[in-house]
């Protein structure tokens, strides 16, 4: 029987629901769990804080779509604003706004997790069928040469000229029209986001989806979650409440609000946390972007946003690794990201059509010296993230900016501007030593993150993790976390498929267990 989507903003009374499985969050993790569990015959309710936004809402106007589709109207950042946080908040979560790059979890990362966190079940062979199933459903293909836009072409050529390892990317799109608006929601439904794949599958199998509801608390009794509580609001109007609330009673609760939000929900619920792990080890893949000016037109807003990458420096023995990718540049995003002031800002904006960007994406969380970020709560219950700029991070940023600068110059840039305050302008290789004098530290180098991970880390030892490799909470047997929050480290590749794979595996096992209990 086909399920329904309820828009919380239009409900005129409190809502009380009862189900087998309640899932908080409809992004990569939540939607995957919903599909698997609904198809297994369980009654599933998915709760989403964002709106029921569809392709008609994806107007390709930045000022209209960012407040609809991103956390905190795209103003989310670390508490000191030193790292801007791009994170989705809409039906389908980050999968609706992401740039579609699709990587499986690297084997050396799984090996590190097995050795360091006792996650012995997570072998490449164990995950293989789950990756394969999700890649098939989401239409993953390798980008052909003719789909590489000018922005990515510069990255490809620069890496090639320097002899650096470079890769053609895979992405989850069917029938791409290559207009470059992935970050604003695909207006053609070509991007195979959860919104057009996994959630319709779950609905077809009878799931109920409720949008516009902010889940505030899990209710606990007798060491189990008995219900989740939230209220309805208008996500497009500053989260103004409608005055009505929601309680869902469930046998099983899955928290899938994504990193930052999932640990915040568990903190608000005052769950037992004897080892102080909740919200700890939040990783961001911090990004430092260098921009290159080219004589030829780049039109960096147009075409497939990401089609190539350079993983040459992903495992640097001398410090934090990083990988390089391009980024789609639209005016609002770009204006807020660059570090120029006044006339310099205007000049950088006027060059936008001839600009290519190289993002150095830092691989955080693999060294014992890195605590990662910490999620706590503001007085109003909203999450607050503090992220330390360790010496290791600062060294990695410096190396990453230098590599991006070299790459853009090798690709023919006439000038490279770094993300320092103020930007350092480099026109030839011999000027690179000037980067050594550029400032370091919070808000002296502009950073952002599109990949949030951790905060409810998985591991075998309850003293240093929140969930086990089945994504079940260590001390609350009917509570699961199924999203990016469970990653014990960052990845060194874009995270969506790691989340798809891990959650598909855990949800498949949960479905077997839950159905066995039902039959008893």
């Amino acid at each position: 029987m086909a399920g329904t989507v309820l828009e919380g903003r239009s409900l005129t009374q409190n809502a009380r629901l009862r189900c087998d499985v309640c899932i908080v969050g409809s992004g990569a993790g939540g939607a995957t769990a919903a599909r698997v569990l609904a198809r297994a015959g369980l009654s599933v309710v998915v709760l989403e804080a964002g709106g029921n936004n569809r392709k008609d809402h994806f107007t390709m106007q930045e000022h209209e779509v960012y407040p609809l589709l991103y956390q905190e109207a795209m103003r989310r950042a670390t508490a000191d604003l030193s790292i801007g946080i791009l994170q989705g908040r809409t039906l389908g979560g980050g999968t609706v706004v992401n740039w579609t790059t699709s990587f499986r979890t690297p084997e050396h990362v799984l090996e590190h997790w097995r050795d360091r966190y006792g996650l012995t079940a997570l072998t490449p062979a164990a995950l293989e069928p789950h990756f394969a199933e999700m890649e098939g459903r989401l239409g993953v293909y390798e980008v052909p040469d003719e789909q590489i836009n000018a922005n990515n072409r510069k990255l490809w050529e620069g890496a090639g000229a320097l002899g650096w390892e470079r890769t053609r990317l895979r992405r989850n799109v069917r029938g791409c029209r290559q207009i470059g608006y992935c970050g604003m929601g695909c207006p053609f439904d070509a991007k195979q986001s959860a919104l057009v794949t996994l959630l319709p599958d779950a609905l077809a199998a009878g799931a109920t989806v409720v949008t516009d509801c902010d889940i505030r608390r899990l209710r606990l009794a007798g060491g189990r979650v008995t219900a989740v509580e939230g209220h309805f609001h208008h996500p497009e109007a500053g989260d103004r409440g409608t005055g009505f609330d929601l309680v869902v009673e469930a046998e099983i609760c899955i928290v899938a609000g994504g990193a930052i939000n999932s640990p915040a929900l568990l903190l608000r619920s005052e769950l037992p946390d004897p080892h102080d792990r909740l919200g700890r080890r939040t990783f961001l893949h911090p990004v430092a972007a260098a921009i290159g000016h080219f004589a030829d037109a780049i039109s960096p807003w147009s075409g497939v946003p990401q089609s190539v990458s350079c993983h040459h420096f992903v495992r640097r023995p001398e410090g934090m690794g990083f990988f390089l990718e391009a980024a789609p540049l639209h005016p609002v995003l770009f204006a807020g990201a660059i570090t120029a002031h006044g006339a310099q800002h205007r000049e950088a904006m006027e060059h936008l059509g001839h600009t290519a960007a190289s993002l150095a994406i830092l691989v955080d969380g693999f060294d014992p010296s890195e605590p990662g970020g910490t999620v706590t709560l503001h007085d109003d219950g909203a999450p607050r993230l503090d992220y330390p700029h360790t010496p290791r991070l600062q060294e990695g940023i410096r190396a990453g900016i230098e590599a991006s600068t070299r790459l853009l110059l090798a690709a023919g840039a006439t000038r490279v501007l770094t993300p320092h305050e103020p930007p350092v302008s480099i026109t030839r290789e011999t000027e690179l030593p000037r980067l050594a004098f550029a400032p370091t530290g919070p808000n002296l180098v502009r950073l952002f993150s599109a990949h949030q991970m951790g905060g409810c880390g998985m591991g075998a030892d309850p003293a240093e993790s929140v969930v086990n490799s089945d994504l079940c909470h260590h001390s609350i047997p009917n509570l699961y976390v199924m999203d990016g929050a469970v990653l014990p480290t960052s990845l060194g590749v874009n995270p969506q498929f790691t989340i798809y794979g891990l959650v598909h595996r855990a949800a498949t096992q949960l479905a077997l267990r839950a159905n066995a209990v039902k039959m008893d």
Partner: protein
Amino acid sequence: MTLDRRTVLVRGLWGGLLLAAGGSTFLALRPSARVELPPEPLHALSPAHFAILLAVVTRCVPPPASTPATCRDTVVRLDTTLAQADARTRNDLLRLLGLLDNALAGFLLDGESTPFSRLDAAAQDAVLERWRLSRFALRRTGYQALRRLAATHFYADPAAQRAIGYPGPPVGVQ
């Protein structure tokens, strides 16, 4: 231990500096500049806030050549954004504007006793530059908040986008 960490971290962002700027002395009360207000009513900004933000936007993101997009319209858009933001964000930003224009704080930290909004353009740039590169982390944070809001709201205007050669969405898509 857990409690300590959380209570320390949830302190308000601007607590420290506001304390430094507190007190109802003569300097702290020197008024902001007056500027002509838009015809439509403001929702979140006071006339003083409007004047301070107008100066910030004008200094941070001067308009590209030959565009009808203006810094005044930008501040009107910012007013709407702030009116819709959650109370914590709005209050933090309004306090930040107050602090930037607070003559006592400016005098104590920089020897500058004229409110920011009353300074000439070069002096305003100098103040923003001091905040941008300050050894006080909170001032750097404040500068980032201001420039980011100014830049993203200025370039939200399709006229500003056209002025830098951005074609906007392909025609006929929707």
